[in-house]
């Protein structure tokens, strides 16, 4: 089981991540990828986002989430790329990709990783708008999504 985690300010190549997930074992039957983009917000008043994180703790947390996923499902590889710093509308923020022999394992592990990334990994988003900048509030729905896995 392989885990690759990268925290970077540069944009990433979705295709390179996918190709790595494709090629690392002949046992792979299913690849699921998630990608988060900076979408329009504040009635098109939004210009972009600034992502802050807690270096060190972020990597540890994400690795721990991946290990938990691998205990639940027969995963072959997991890859996470999360950007930090300033991003404009439409830019890629985060990539999570999982491969497995079976599709359900790949789907569920990818969703699990995203749910816990959202509630446990120390990233904070600042919204940059034409008028002002403000810290984005956490959403109760994200906590609920992570909690459904604990049942």
């Amino acid at each position, binding site marked *: 089981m392989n885990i690759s985690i990268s925290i970077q300010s540069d944009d990433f190549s979705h295709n390179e991540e996918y190709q790595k997930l494709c090629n690392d074992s002949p046992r792979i039957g299913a690849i699921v990828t998630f990608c988060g983009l900076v979408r329009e917000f504040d009635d098109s008043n939004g210009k972009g986002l600034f992502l802050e994180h807690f270096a060190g703790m972020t990597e540890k947390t994400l690795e721990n989430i991946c290990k938990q996923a691998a205990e639940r499902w027969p995963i072959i590889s997991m890859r996470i790329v999360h950007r930090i710093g300033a991003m404009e509308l439409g830019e890629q*923020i985060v990539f999570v990709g999982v491969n497995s022999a079976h599709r359900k394992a790949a789907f569920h592990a990818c969703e699990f990783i995203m749910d816990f990334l959202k509630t446990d990994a120390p990233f*904070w988003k600042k919204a940059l708008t034409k008028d002002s900048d403000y810290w984005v*509030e956490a959403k109760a729905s994200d906590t609920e999504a992570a909690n459904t896995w604990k049942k």
Partner: protein
Amino acid sequence: MLQLRFFASLRDQLNCDGESLDWNDNFSIASDVRKVLVARGTPWDTLSKSTVLIAINQEMGNDETTINDGDEIAFFPPVTGG
């Protein structure tokens, strides 16, 4: 000595991203440090909010987590990545 760290909106409110705090033999759990900071009054009393998260040595903890001399204790608001 404890190394304190503050992130995101909390850092902005405190106008401080961290400080060293002398070890005090009364310190036993994370809430002991939180109380010392809150006692400083505005803006530090924002740390009394129940939503403030605490990580000890880069692992998520809470008010009851045991602390030791030399620990790094981070306070931050709920996370919003992804």
